[in-house]
Every structure is written in C-alpha cells, then in structure tokens.
C-alpha cells in the first residue's frame, strides 16, 4: 500500500491530490441539515484538509493516552477518553459515550 506520508501537497501522487474522497465529503455535508442547499466546489476541498487535521489531532491525543497504558494498540477507548479530555471535542461526547 502506498505510504500516505509521502503526500506533500496538491497535485502530487497517483491516488489524486486529496487524501479523502471529495464526493463523499459533499454527501456528508448535505446530510447536516435542510438548510444546506448549495455547496461551492471548494468546500469539500477545504474539508478534506480540515478532516485530515482533525483526524491527526484526535489521533495524537488518543495515542498519548494509549502509551500511558503501556500498550502499542490505539483502542476505541483511547479515542473516547481523548474526546472526554478535550473541550474542543465536546460536540463528540454523545457519540463516544453512546457507542459503549
């Protein structure tokens, strides 16, 4: 599998410049509410980067908790704990507590 770490920016790579599929992002955006009618072509592009940053931040915070437990496997509970420990991720609290 091609190592995503070699991705350095727009226009590089055979898999396309974005790490996340834009059409899918657009679908998810549209599901967020009735009032979302039209979406500029750029919005999914911005989100593809924002989601990448988000995933990285949440993963980083989760991993910090994983290593406290002295394992090398990042678990679902680590993600849940990272959410609970971070004010910025309050909007995820219901999601991670329901899933247990």
């Amino acid at each position, binding site marked *: 599998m091609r190592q995503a770490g070699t991705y350095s920016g727009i226009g590089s790579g055979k898999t396309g410049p974005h790490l996340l599929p834009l059409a*899918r992002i657009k679908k998810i955006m549209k599901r967020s509410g009735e009032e979302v009618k039209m979406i500029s072509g750029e919005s999914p592009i911005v989100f593809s980067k924002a989601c990448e940053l988000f995933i990285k931040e949440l993963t980083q915070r989760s991993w910090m908790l994983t290593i406290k437990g002295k394992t090398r496997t990042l678990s679902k509970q680590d993600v849940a704990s990272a959410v609970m420990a971070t004010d910025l991720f309050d909007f995820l609290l219901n999601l991670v507590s329901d899933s247990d």
Partner: protein
Amino acid sequence: MAENIIGASNEDDVGIKEQDRLLPIANVGRIMKQIVPPNAKISKEAKETMQECVSEFIGFVTSEASQKCRKERRKTVTGDDICWALATLGFDNYEAPLKRYLHKFRELEGEKAANQMKATGHDYKQEEEEDEQYPLKFSLIGRNQQ
C-alpha cells in the same frame, strides 16, 4: 438522541447506505497511521470510531457555516464559510494551514480554469453545485476511490 452506529437504519432516508455517512475506513486509517509510530497498531474499532467522529465534525462545522449563509441570505456555502466556521467553533489553529491549502488549490485551479475557458468559453469556477456533477470538472480528483 442515540444513533445506531452498527448496521440497522433508523434513517429517515431509506435509500441512503450506511457507508455514505462515513469516510472510507482505509483513508481514515491511513491518516491515523501517519501520527503513530511505525510499530504501533490501531484497532479496527478505533478506526470506526474515528470515522464516526469525522462525519460528526463535518456536520457540526457545515451547520455553523450554513447558518451564517442563511443569515447573510446567501445560498452557497463556500470554502471561506467553512474556514470561518472552524475558527468560530474553536478550530482556529486549523486556519493557517487551511488558508495555505486553499490558496494553493485556487492557484492551480485558476490555471486550469483559464485553460478551460479558452477551450470551452465556460467559467465553471463561478458555478454553484447542486448535485454530483463536479467530479467531472475537477480532473485533479476525477480518480477518487469511492
């Protein structure tokens, strides 16, 4: 209101597949792998949880952006609206990298649009999207894995 994560549809829209709610697990997992050391493992459930979190993130930010558009009586959610919503919701440290990314993209697309204008006389950049036509217009992303 609790939402089923696994399988069953409580969805209002009967036609929507479970998978359309989420970004592909392979893509999400790949990004997660960039953060952890090479010998680290990530459980499948952790990736699934991350998928759910990202979709929630997209919905959360999009709602904020679209409310702003409604207040300002604009119909289209733009990249700048997303940036604004992110900053408003506390993700202000994303703002700089996003602006760089968007700027780069606009530069590239500006070139492509200029070429396309010459070819077809059609300025696709100004158009607003209502459905799934745009993958054809952005040949950069024409080969998305779905």
